[in-house]
């Protein structure tokens, strides 16, 4: 019975891991990069330098909005956090007519001047891609991503049941042993960061829980909105009275909210009916202030600046949900923990990638004729090349496009994103056209070359190249360039290994028969 269970779990692990493995690889890769989305954005906006104080920035933003759209229905202000330097503002125009993106938003510096930098979606795009994907309706993407995440959860648990010697194999990493090495790489990246993988997958499902499993709410609420109002509070729109009144100073309001939250900063401000006697100002606690992602909120009168309300304290379930989402997003993490998040995510990406490769490695020796594999085998192999080499190459191309596309290009941000997908597509086409044994080293080499080119191109196209930023102690730029070089090194080593393998020819089966079953 026990062996039977392990076999059925191995089967389940293999197929749940494979079917959406390519999507999971892309989700893991972009999700991992999202831990540094603010840093990536700063690298992709090299014109923006220095730091900004959130309170001074919010005051500057209010001055900008008073100049630009004094009669708007609402203003929304995201002052910079400790990792960013710009203020994002957007507003709801008085006449509510639909507008294009960019006409109702602006990026400001600390003094409230609009920043002119190259148009880019920055790290935010990579973050959004990991659950919204691209070129498809967001709703479909989120369902697809949810299915993939559930497959991942089942693959992880069945993988644990399958894995016999989970502690003995913990420190086992045998190099140059063919299938055994792939299995070790898969196991080590899986087991070392196992709590992370379980946490990130489960909490990822929780971030969109009410969409995937709406029936818990439907059981108690006839109207979904009643639930959301109970949780997030009602945001009723009050009509302007027409009686003008000067807006209360925003700085003291932010300080008083901070004081109420043990010094945690304000991360978001909403100002309704600015300049009117009915104005209100709502302040939300910054995401980096605590693990729980759903921050406390306080509302103030926009005329007197006195507090008029606040969010209800959360009960156990809502607090648990808030902490789960916060753990997933990691916005609370300081740099030490942030790097640990990043490394664990990288481990997860390698785990998914090595699992995909393992599928072909294990089956290659069993093929009736290894020189002419059947369709399914070829498909998996081609998709593996396109994803494991091609998707990272696409990310490198995204960074390169940021430096190389003309600064004044129309829809520049979209073209940056297109570069990612065109590169990915090109690698797929190449992999389909070339024999796999050749395509592997060549495409891994391409990814290495593109990553290595990023710091070089950065040095030639901006004044913030690696030598300069090293001398200036600009650690954000130094770290970004170094991570690019390390990724290049990793892919170059992979390419070399794949090239040598091709020279040796396919490895003959040297496994004990038992291993073949359990792995």
């Amino acid at each position: 019975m026990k062996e039977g269970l392990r076999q059925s779990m191995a089967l389940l692990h293999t197929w749940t891991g494979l079917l959406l493995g390519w999507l999971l690889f892309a989700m893991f890769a972009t999700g991992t990069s999202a831990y540094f989305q603010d840093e990536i954005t700063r690298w992709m906006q090299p014109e923006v330098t220095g730091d900004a104080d959130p309170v001074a920035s919010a005051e500057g933003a209010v001055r900008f909005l008073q100049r630009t759209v004094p009669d708007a229905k609402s203003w929304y202000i995201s002052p910079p956090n400790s990792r960013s330097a710009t203020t994002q503002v957007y507003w709801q125009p008085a006449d509510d007519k639909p507008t294009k993106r960019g006409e109702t938003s602006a990026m400001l510096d600390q003094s409230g001047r609009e920043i002119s930098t190259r148009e880019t979606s920055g790290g935010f795009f990579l973050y959004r891609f990991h659950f919204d994907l691209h070129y498809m309706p967001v709703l479909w993407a989120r369902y697809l991503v949810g299915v993939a995440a559930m497959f991942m959860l089942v693959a992880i648990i069945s993988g644990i049941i399958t894995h016999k010697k989970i502690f003995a194999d913990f420190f086992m990493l045998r190099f140059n042993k063919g299938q055994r090495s792939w299995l070790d790489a898969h196991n080590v990246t899986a087991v070392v960061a196992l709590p992370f993988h379980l946490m990130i997958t489960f909490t990822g499902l929780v971030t969109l829980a009410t969409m995937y499993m709406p029936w818990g709410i439907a059981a108690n609420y006839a109207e979904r909105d009643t639930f959301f109002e109970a949780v997030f509070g009602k945001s009723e729109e009050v009509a302007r009275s027409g009686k003008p009144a000067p807006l209360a100073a925003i700085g003291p309001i932010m300080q008083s909210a901070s004081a109420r939250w043990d010094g945690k900063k304000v991360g978001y401000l909403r100002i309704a009916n600015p300049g009117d006697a009915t104005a209100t100002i709502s302040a939300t606690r910054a995401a980096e202030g605590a693990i729980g992602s759903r921050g406390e909120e306080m509302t103030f009168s926009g005329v007197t600046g006195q507090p008029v309300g606040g969010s209800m304290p959360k009960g156990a379930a809502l607090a648990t949900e808030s902490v789960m989402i916060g753990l997933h997003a990691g916005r609370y993490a300081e740099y030490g923990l942030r790097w640990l998040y990043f490394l664990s995510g990288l481990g997860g990406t390698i785990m998914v990638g090595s699992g995909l490769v393992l599928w072909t490695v294990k089956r290659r020796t069993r093929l009736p004729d290894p020189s002419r594999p059947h369709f399914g085998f070829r498909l998996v192999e081609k998709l593996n090349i396109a994803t494991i080499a091609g998707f990272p190459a696409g990310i490198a191309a995204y960074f390169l496009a940021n430096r190389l596309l003309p600064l004044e290009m129309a829809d520049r941000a979209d073209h940056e994103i297109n570069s990612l997908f065109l590169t990915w597509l090109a690698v797929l086409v190449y992999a389909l056209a070339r024999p796999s044994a050749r395509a592997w080293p060549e495409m891994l080499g391409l990814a290495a070359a593109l990553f290595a080119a990023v710091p070089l191109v950065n040095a030639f196209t901006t004044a913030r190249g690696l030598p300069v930023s090293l001398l200036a102690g600009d650690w954000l730029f130094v770290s970004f360039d170094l991570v690019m070089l390390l990724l290049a090194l990793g892919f170059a080593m992979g390419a070399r290994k794949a090239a040598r393998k091709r020279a040796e020819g396919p490895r003959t089966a040297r496994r004990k028969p038992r291993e073949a079953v359990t792995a």
Partner: protein
Amino acid sequence: MAKSAATARGTNRGIGRWNVASRILAAIPANYLFTSLATACLARLLAHGLTVNPAEASVAATLLSFAIFATVALFAFGLRSIARLWLWLAVGSAIGGSLLWLSLDMGGRL
């Protein structure tokens, strides 16, 4: 080809096409139905049986639902007998469905 591979692997213990198809049906659509009913029942039970705040009750049940779904999916492939698997799912869903129906019939939905 696939069959010879299965034999070589030694996993050839009568895993037929229908066997796998039936388990996939149990693991995904039937499992989703079962989990939805269980989640809704739990949300009702917490809110009306144990007088938890209804928003809290709904969220607690929703958080648990993913663990329920994953566990049932594993059982769909781990249980040896397919007949027993479907019996469990059918009985579970029938109980959940009727409890939910009774509970909703008594009202109290906001």
